[in-house]
């Protein structure tokens, strides 16, 4: 029997040892020791000797990741207060990390976030209030209001800076339009519907129009321009004009000019349909310009295309997208991080980054540094920004957005009338906005 107990004791000791081992060995590896792998040519950081504080920056840039890393490296080389390590985290995961981080306090020093999402994270306490530091900087008035507003809370305090912006416009396959007998791009909703009808070819599986109406923020993003073009608004979803906008789109689907599958399409899927020659017109975003020519070449469809504003009903409209950078709470180098942000978002740097990454700038005095303006395709988007509305900012924007895309989907798949769908959406949104209204556009 004693042999048996010896065995038990030894097993128990083994477990305890394993447990202590686990507890002890985890501590050393954290973000700072991984500098060498993520930064292309940064030198190994010897935390002991240098005075540079270790700063982590999390982002979800894909194609633009290299551009970001190079600019960060430039900053690292030119000062010795902080050393920034850049880590890519897939977007959904990054958002989860912020949410969990709000509870655990484990956050990066600098975090990137999609503009409509920032208000919620500000409310959750993820981002640090840096209003005073930024006001001291004194260049805030150069920023476009729409983009800057997404970094604010309901009281107007600032938690970060907008990094880039984009908006939506209409991309037309001129070959298909010409073949249907149209020389010009549509300007009004009537012209648009006419062209969509003429270019739809069910036999060939070609649709007049392609857009994304997916059940998440992307769908809301794509729908907003139509809502405001008709004179409707998020604050008044049940108004006749708002209903009209939804009616218009669901009618396009009912007539077969727009595929019903768009309720499951991401913007990328809608884009692919256009590239493959299956759609005559596409609701396209600024970020799609960079790879457009290559994608068309790969597809072998040899499309002659042209950009124009999304068609107007009462007015032209578009929607502001883009990413912001904020300083997270709990950072030990808040002021230094703000310094980085102000450097990164100076007129020249913002313009430079926009050029390299194929984006629009967020401040008017950066325009001259953005070489993309000479590209007439970017010019369309740049001009469209004048009519672009911001989403929110509102801490409950995700709930508002869900109400919107649910309403849109209900009408799009034909299971609800536009009026009913919008009424249900308004029932969710109106109480929220009554409690905390949206800021003025």
């Amino acid at each position, binding site marked *: 029997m004693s042999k048996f107990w010896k065995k*038990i004791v030894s097993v128990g000791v083994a477990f305890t040892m394993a447990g202590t081992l686990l507890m002890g060995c985890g501590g050393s590896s954290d973000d700072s020791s991984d500098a060498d792998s993520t930064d292309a040519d940064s030198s190994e950081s010897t935390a002991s000797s240098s005075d540079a504080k270790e700063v982590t920056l999390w982002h979800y840039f894909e194609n633009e990741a290299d551009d970001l890393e190079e600019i960060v490296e430039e900053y690292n080389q030119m000062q010795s207060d902080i050393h920034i390590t850049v880590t890519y985290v897939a977007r959904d995961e990054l958002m989860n990390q912020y*949410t969990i981080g709000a509870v655990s306090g484990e956050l990066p020093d600098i975090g990137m976030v999609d503009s409509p999402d920032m208000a919620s994270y500000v*409310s959750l306490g993820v981002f640090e209030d840096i209003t005073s530091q930024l006001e001291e900087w004194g260049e805030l008035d150069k920023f476009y209001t729409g983009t800057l507003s997404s970094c604010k809370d309901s009281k107007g305090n600032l938690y970060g800076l907008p990094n880039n912006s984009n908006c939506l416009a209409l991309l037309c396959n001129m070959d298909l339009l010409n073949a249907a007998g149209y020389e010009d791009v549509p300007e009004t909703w009537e012209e648009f519907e006419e062209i969509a009808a003429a270019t739809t070819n069910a036999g060939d599986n070609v649709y007049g129009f392609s857009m994304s109406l997916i*059940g998440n923020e992307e769908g809301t993003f794509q729908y907003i321009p139509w809502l405001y073009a008709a004179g409707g608004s998020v604050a008044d979803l049940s108004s006749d004009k708002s209903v009209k906008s939804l009616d218009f789109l669901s009618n396009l689907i009912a007539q077969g000019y727009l595929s*019903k*599958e768009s*309720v*499951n399409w991401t913007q990328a899927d809608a884009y692919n349909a256009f590239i493959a020659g299956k759609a005559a017109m596409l609701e396209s975003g600024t970020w799609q310009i960079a790879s457009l020519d290559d994608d068309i070449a790969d597809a072998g469809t040899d499309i002659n295309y042209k950009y124009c504003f999304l068609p107007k009903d009462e007015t032209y409209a578009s929607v502001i997208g883009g990413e912001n950078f904020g300083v997270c709470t709990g950072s030990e180098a808040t002021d230094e991080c703000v310094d980085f942000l102000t450097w990164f978002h100076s007129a020249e740097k913002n313009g430079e980054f926009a050029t390299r990454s194929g984006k629009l700038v967020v401040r008017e005095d950066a325009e001259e540094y953005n070489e993309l303006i000479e590209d007439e395709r970017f010019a369309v988007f740049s001009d469209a920004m004048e009519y672009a509305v911001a989403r929110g900012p509102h801490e409950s924007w*995700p*709930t508002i957005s869900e109400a919107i895309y649910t309403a849109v989907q209900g009408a799009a798949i034909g299971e609800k009338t536009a009026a009913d769908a919008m009424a249900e959406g308004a029932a969710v949104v109106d109480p929220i906005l009554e409690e905390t209204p949206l800021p003025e556009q």
Partner: protein
Amino acid sequence: MKKKRSMAAARKIEGYCFLLPAFIYLLVVIGYPLVYNVILSFKDTNVKNFKAGTSVFIGLDNYITLFQDPTFLLVLRNTFVFTIGSLVFQFTIGFLFAMFFSKKFTISGPVRGLLLVSYMMPMSVTALLARNMFGTTEGVINDLLVNIGLISAPIEWLTSTSTAMIAVVAANCWVGIPFNMLLLTSGLTGINQAVYESASIDGANGWQRFRYITLPLMKPAILSVLMLGFIYTFKAFDLMYIMTSGGPLNSTDVLGTYAYNLSFTQYEFSLGSAAAMVLFLCLFVVGLLYLKLIAREDD
């Protein structure tokens, strides 16, 4: 007498020693999350009061809110429909496959091994594959059905609230059938062939052998497969999240995706935890049922 008692006690302690490490491990790793969610579900924490920490205990209010919400009731219904629908097909077909491939013919081993591949694939890939195959106009499933002549027009699998769930159940069964087959096979092989032989000699036919020998002897395996299958299917998340995002119009939204949406997208932390607790309670009841069923066969 004394020796017998201490031997019995020693055996009990032995049993505990084998049992306890896993038990303690689970208590630590899962116990805290469980308590965390229970407490959270009784408060009113959301994005508005989170930072200020001013959330208060509101008792059962979250649960009342949920059960008064028609969307939640739809989600609850979806979860049961999905689970029971999947289980019925997975189990039946899995059992049939298990029995068929237990027969010893030349390629039974390799083919059975091949069939397991669908279970081995990560759910994210399966979900994307299913989404691709169930596409209305470019989906291969519609293409096949139309070409074979079973249907005249493509079915709007994922864009219609009436058919989306069917597509999701089908995809889930594709993954679940091998799982059932695997576990049931192991159970089948435990049955001594001699029992079948003597039954045949006594004049029992195939169906009788199945009903009076196979089924009873398989009862433990069947119960574990069904119980585990129910739990895993009931809390499914990846499949519908990636395949349909719970749409269209919540027709494929289940408790797992609904709770995630509430907590991580809407930042309604307390409501999300409450939804998760509803899921938990449903499974708990089923767990109790399982215990009752195996209790009978234990004695």
